[in-house]
Structure formats: structure tokens, C-alpha cells
């Protein structure tokens, strides 16, 4: 390839493969070689030019529509589809190369709105839900094992699978073009943040769909889809793995209220809304909260809700026994003076929370780096912000805590 005209290869590969049909089969040797060279171009870090990929995608549109072999040991169809998806994904990566984390989240939200919020039955959700086969009970499976395609249950197996390959192709392509490139582009800080990794438990799932090993979930599921499309009764052999994969993809990614969709809906954070919903005015009758017209920021809503709880718990641990009893009985701290205000500059919102009448023991615990405030600081840093505080109360007896948030604009 080094000495050949790469662009010409990209342009012509579809045509070359199409014309290699002999005895109702396409040349396996030629296909294997083409796939190999395509993958080299995809992997080569010097190939930053969109034009190679545009041409390759056009070529692969031709290739994936050919009647390729889908035998397990020589699954040309599966490889061609995978390459088509990888190339399409790469093209999106070019488009979004300049986006930062906020830009990526905005684009994901836009995609989500277009795909899910404009129709009564979002097609992605319907398609993946349609191919669930868990409605087949043990009675049904026993009958299918016994009577095969003459079983009364056969239609209940066959109908959901009748269009499974094109339906899955559509979903799979969506994952490769509307999700994966964006996920890849998200910063490592966000991917490994507490919210993404532990609250939403998405990190492991995404690694299982982007890795290039043999246990890639999408490859695995695609192979199972091919098996079912070719012969629905294969379900009896692969039921457990198929059901698990279908459910993982549906719950984590594809359904309207999937874990991932819920994650992207965490942004932007409207600070006023959260503070109002936590009824801080009631918890602290003696409060001054000045947050009118505060800008929306880049931080997960659910995490900020938890942070507020952490602060309330910290206050509870530091007030007098009497005040603690009052809080437990009536849900309020009458003796704590509580203030929230903010200032802003071009890039950040600085939200300051002050409260008094708590003991001034050191708030930073070197031996316990995972303690409340340090964990909050780490998470804020993951989303481009920070948490600023002095370990002790100030000279007026107030503990002062400033959240630095990246503005979501």
C-alpha cells in the first residue's frame, strides 16, 4: 500500500470487490486483503484526511449491500459492516475534533432530542425492544425445542426476529456515529469521574463497546443477531448471552430513559432550581440566599444535589447537641446563619456558601482523602471547576465554601 495511490484504493475498492463475483461468491482472498488495508488506513495515525474516509465510506456502502458470506468462521458480512461503522465513526471524530467536554455534551443532547423527543415511539427504542425475546417462557422454549418451526410458539419467536438484521444495523450504526465518537472525545477526567464511573456505572459498559478485543459487546451481539436472522431457533442455544446483551444495550444506552441518556440530561446544572428543590430556606430559617440570574453551569445535577446533602450532614455533625436534636425533630437549624451568594467572570461561576455556629475543627483530613469535601473537590475538578475553602472557620465564626463552576455556554 505504501507505494500505491491510497486515494485511488479508497475510491475503487467497492467496485473491485463487486466485480470479483465468481460462482455466486466473492473472492475471499480479495476481501480479506481489502479489509486488511482498510483497517490499516483506519488505524494509521497519519491518515488525518477526511477525503480518504469519505471515499472509503462510499465504497463500503456498496460492499455491505453485497451478498457476502455470513458463515461463522468466515463472516465477511460482519467484518464489512464493522469496518463501515468504524469508518463512519472516524468521520464524525474529524467533525468534532475541536469540541471540548461541554461541546460534546451539547452535541449529545442535541442528538438525543432529535432521536427521542420528536416521536411517540422513538424508533431506536422500539427496534431494540422489539427484538427482546424474554416473553418466551419456559413452556414456550420447551415446545420450540420439541417441535421446532411447527411449534405453536414459532411465530412468537420468528416475528420479532423477522427484521432483526436491518433493525440492528440501524441501531449499531447509530451507536458508532452518534455515541462512540463523542464518548471517545470526552476527557479522561469525565470518563473516570465519580458520577460517570460510580453513580451511573457507565465506564465499564463503554469500555466493553469500544475495545478492539474479541469480547467487544457490539461485535458479540452482532454475531448473535446474524445467527438468529439466519435461523431463529438458534435462540435456544444462545438465549442467555443474547438476552443479557440485549438488556445491557437497551438499559444502558438505547431506551429513552437509559442510564446514558439520564447522564447527559444531568447538564446543564441550574443551581437555583436545585437549591429551591432542597428547600434550604426551610432548613435554615436564618438564611440569605442571593442567586438570582445565576448562569447555568457544567456539573451533574444529581452530584450537586448530593453535595448539598453532604454539606447539611457536615453541619449536623458540627452543631451543638441541642441544634442537632432540633434538626432531627423539625428538620431545621434555627441557630445557624446560612448564606449563599455568587460572583461570576467570563468563564466561571463562584458560588459561595457560608454558615456559622458549627465547631471549627479542621475540615481537611489528610488521613481521609476521601472525606466529604475532598471528594467534592475532586469531582468539581473533573468537570473543570474546583472547591475552595479554608480548613477552619473565619474570624467571624463562618465556615466559607466556594464552588467554582465552569459556565455552560
Amino acid at each position, binding site marked *: 500500500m505504501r507505494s500505491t495511490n491510497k486515494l485511488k484504493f479508497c475510491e475503487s475498492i467497492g467496485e473491485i470487490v463487486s466485480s470479483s463475483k465468481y460462482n455466486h461468491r466473492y473472492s475471499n482472498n480479495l476481501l480479506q486483503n481489502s479489509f486488511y488495508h482498510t483497517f490499516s488506513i483506519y488505524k494509521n495515525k497519519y491518515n488525518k484526511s477526511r477525503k480518504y474516509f469519505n471515499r472509503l465510506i462510499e465504497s463500503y456502502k456498496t460492499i455491505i449491500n453485497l451478498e457476502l458470506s455470513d458463515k461463522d468462521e468466515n463472516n465477511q458480512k460482519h467484518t464489512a459492516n464493522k469496518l463501515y461503522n468504524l469508518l463512519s465513526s472516524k468521520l464524525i471524530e474529524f467533525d468534532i475534533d475541536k469540541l471540548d467536554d461541554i461541546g460534546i455534551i451539547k452535541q449529545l443532547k442535541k442528538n438525543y432530542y432529535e432521536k427521542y423527543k420528536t416521536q411517540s415511539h422513538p424508533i431506536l427504542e422500539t427496534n431494540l425492544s422489539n427484538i427482546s425475546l424474554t416473553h418466551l417462557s419456559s413452556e414456550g422454549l420447551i415446545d420450540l425445542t420439541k417441535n421446532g418451526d411447527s411449534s405453536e410458539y414459532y*411465530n412468537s419467536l420468528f416475528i420479532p426476529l423477522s427484521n432483526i438484521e436491518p433493525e440492528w444495523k440501524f441501531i449499531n450504526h447509530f451507536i458508532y456515529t452518534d455515541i462512540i465518537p463523542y464518548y471517545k472525545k470526552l476527557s479522561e477526567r469525565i470518563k473516570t469521574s465519580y458520577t460517570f464511573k460510580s453513580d451511573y456505572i457507565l465506564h465499564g459498559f463503554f469500555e466493553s463497546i469500544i475495545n478492539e478485543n474479541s469480547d467487544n459487546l457490539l461485535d458479540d451481539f452482532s454475531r448473535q443477531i446474524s445467527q438468529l436472522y439466519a435461523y431463529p431457533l438458534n435462540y435456544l442455544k444462545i438465549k442467555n448471552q443474547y438476552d443479557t446483551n440485549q438488556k445491557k444495550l437497551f438499559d444502558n444506552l438505547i431506551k429513552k430513559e437509559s442510564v446514558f441518556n439520564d447522564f447527559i440530561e444531568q447538564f446543564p446544572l441550574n443551581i437555583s432550581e436545585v437549591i429551591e428543590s432542597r428547600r434550604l430556606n426551610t432548613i435554615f430559617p436564618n438564611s440569605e440566599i442571593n442567586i438570582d440570574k445565576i448562569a447555568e453551569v457544567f456539573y451533574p445535577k444529581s452530584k450537586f444535589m448530593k453535595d448539598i446533602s453532604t454539606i447539611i450532614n457536615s453541619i449536623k455533625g458540627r452543631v451543638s447537641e441541642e441544634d442537632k436534636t432540633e434538626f432531627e425533630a423539625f428538620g431545621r437549624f434555627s441557630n445557624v446563619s446560612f448564606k449563599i451568594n455568587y460572583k461570576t467572570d467570563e468563564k466561571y461561576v463562584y458560588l459561595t456558601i457560608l454558615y456559622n455556629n458549627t465547631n471549627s475543627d479542621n475540615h481537611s483530613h489528610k488521613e481521609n482523602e476521601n472525606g466529604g469535601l475532598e471528594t467534592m473537590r475532586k469531582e468539581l475538578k473533573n468537570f473543570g471547576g474546583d472547591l475552595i475553602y479554608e480548613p477552619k472557620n473565619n474570624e467571624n465564626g463562618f465556615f466559607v465554601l466556594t464552588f467554582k463552576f465552569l459556565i455552560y455556554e
Partner: protein
Amino acid sequence: MSSFKVRYWDDNPVILARIKASCLDLNSIYRNIDAQSVEYSSILSSDADFLSSFDLFIFDLLDENNSKNLIGLEILEYFKNLHVDTPVIVYTTGTQSGGNSLDLHNYEEKYPNAVFIKKSEDADTKRLKAEIEKIIQRNLDEQFEVESDYIDEFKQQLHYFGNSRINQILFQVKQEYKIPIDQKVKLSKLKSGFSGAILFKFIFSNTDYVLKLSKDITLLKSELNRAKSYYPLFPPKFFNYINPTEFHTSSNDTMAIVIKLIHPNKTLFDYIRQSTSKQNVEKILNEVYNNFGLKEHYKTKTKNNLPWTDILKKFKNGRFITISEVHKELKPLLINFNLSEIQNLIEKDDYKHLNAIKISHRGTETLNHLDLHSKNILVQGEKTPFLIDTGIMDYDYWCFDICRLLVDLLINGIDIDTKEFYDINTISKNIELGHHLIKLEPIAYDSKNNRIIDAINWLTANVSDIYEDYFTKWELQLGLMKEFLQMSYRTGTTPHSKRTLSLELAYICMIEAEKNVL
């Protein structure tokens, strides 16, 4: 089951396939389920009679393919206007054209015949299947035939539970015992207790079973659980098979359990009365207590020690009022009974030497039957005794079981089936008899009640041996006092004469116990 007709419509062929699979599953259990998909237009053009000939409709709300209308609501409204009350399951994503969510709760209130299920929460169709099954169960054919002498009483019981509930339960019982689906269960009525449960007998594989049905599910569940956990702890010779399965109606308002019926089933009470000799009475009581019977059981199945004042705990904490009310009612017939002294002992743990401060004695808790009267012991053939009504078994004060048996024999046994049983003029004479019992002295024969007297005498002569590790006379006498007090308010089964006798004897128990405590 005669054909159960289901018609269903959805705009998505996959959902139609799922509904079909659910109906096939249920058909394998209930048979004769005729389930077919239809076009919604055919539903909307049918008349009320035709629509009412079906047993269930299942349909989607939104027609995504053609009209984009909320067809499901149109059908529900159509049914409402035609007064068609066939059950409906609405199987829906709960959204309308454009993607907005529908408030299904509102529709549930508006159309009470319809159940709404969200498809997104039911990919495995479990909920759908459960809802269809509920409706099928309400439509089951008669699962039983009546074979009973008490036909009127039977009808009354059927009316109380409703045929549908009994059918639902029997359908499951038939499956449990693998009785062919088309075979009717032959039910006959058994005498029921006062717990609100009713008892039927049915025969399967030459074995008689009791079906116990109750609307008090908590009570019956607890009965079954206690029986399951405690019954096996009783000596194997008393064991009677109880099926561990609970049978419930679809709306979960009635429950049943199945117990093997002991047959032929003479109660210990009848056995004693009909015995021809003292030896026969003693033989059966020996069988109950000795030869790996209850004596060894009480010796080994023990738990904690309880303060002696717990013997009367049933009347503590405000519950003494029951006794005060009985006292008010029976006052004209009473002779020596002293309410305030009894109240003092129960509520303040104080009657002369019977004082909680002076006596700190604790008695052993044994695993008791807790309703061991002579009709809850069945005798099969000449010797084998069985325990029945095992639903309240539990650990409690060691003397409770034998006290109940003694008091039952004395109060319900003496003069039974004679005019004297009800005669208030026998009270004084019977107080004397009872006094002997309380003092554990033999009662003399009176020619009419000799076998009952044999039984009482055997028990009072052997009680210290039966409970050799725990026995004290005064604790036993307080146990008898508790039983006599309880007997005094059994207004439904015990005549005034006997209830008055019970109160008097309770008082004597207290006096005797106080004498013996030192």
C-alpha cells in the same frame, strides 16, 4: 374450562406475537383459550351483544401506523356508551403521537373495567400474563361437586366465599395433586371451628384431605407457618401431613391450605365417653403421654424460663375488662367469687403470698399445642392419637396444654348431653368435683360420668410425673385458673351454669395456689 375468548389488537406485530405467546402459555395451564388478533375497526363496528360474548379484550392505545389516533381510548369510550363491561387490558407505551406521555392513572379512574400496563416495564410480558390469568381465574368453570349431608349449610358457606373463589382455589389444588383438569372435586362439608375458616373434605387417591379456606389470610398464613415450623418438632407419632403450599385467589382475598384428614376420626372426647372400661381410657391417655409421647416431648422441647406471673398475662394490660364484664353478667349466680382479689393478682401480681416481689420463681417454656382440648386429639383405631388444629403452636408456660385438657374434660365433659349440663342447680355439686381436680385429688364416680372422671383422675394422678422436671402444684393451679377464666367468657359454646362454675373454680384455684406456694 368452556372456551375463554380473548381478542387483541396492536399496531406492532411484535407485540401481537408476545400477546399470542402469553395466551399460549396460559392455554397450557387452563386449556380452551381462544385468543385471536382483530382489527380495531371490527371492534368499533360491533354491537353490544357481540362484544359481550368475549371474555377479554387486550389493545394498544395509539395507532402509530395509520390514523395516529388514540384508538384504545375510542374503544374504551365505545364500550362505555354501549354498556359493555367485558374486562379490558390496555397494553401501551403510554405516549401519544408526538411523544408526550399520557397520564394513565386518570384513565384507570375513568374506565374501571380496564387495567393499564406499560409495555416498557413488561418486556418479558410477566405482568400482562398475570393480568390475563386473573381474569381467566374469575371465569373458571365449576371445579367441584357437592357431596354432603349438610347441603343447606354448604350453600351458605359457598355463598359466603362465592363460587368463583372456591373454583380458583380448587383449580390450583387440582394442579398440585395432578387431578385431571376436567374432573370435578367432590367436596363434602366438615364441622368448622369458630375462626371464620371453613373446612371441606375431598378425596384423592384413596386419601381424605381437608381443604381449609379463610378470608383471614394473615391468620391462616400464620397457622400454616407455625404448623410448618413447629409440627415437625412434635413426636412423629402425632404427625399429620400438611401441604406446605398456600393456595390464593387472584385478588388475594382468600387463602386455603390442605391437610390430610385422619380417618376414621374419633375425637379423644368421644373415645373417652364411649369407652367401656377405665382400662381403655387409661390406655389411650398413656398413648398420648407415654411411649414416646408428649411427656418426652415436653421434657426435651424447651426454651427460656418465664416469670410465674406470665401464666396470667392473657388478662393483663387492660384486658381484665373481659372478666369484669363476665362477672357483671353472671353475678346473680355466683357464690364465693371475689372479683377484686382476682384483679389484684392479675394486675398487681399480688394475692397474699402470691406476690411477685416475694416470689421470683420462673417456670420453663415448653413447645405447646396451645389448644389441646379433647376434640383436637383424634384417635385412629384403638390407639393412635393425632393432634389437629396445629395453627397456634408455640413455646409457652409448661402447664398450659394439660390445664386446657383438664378444664375441657371437666367443664365440657361432666353431664354432657343431659339436662344437668345446663342446670344452674348443679353448680354447687360441680364446684366440689372441680375442687378435687384442683387439689389433684381423685374424683369419686357418679355413675353418669365415670369415663370422663377416669380421664380426669388419670391426668391429675400423672401430671407431676408427666412434667417431672418442672412441676409445682401452685403453678399448675394458676394454669388451671387461667383456663377456667377463659372458659367463663366462651358464651357461644358454654352455658351459664358452666361459665359460672368456671369463675368459681378460677377463684378456688387462686386460693389453693396461694396455700401451696410456700
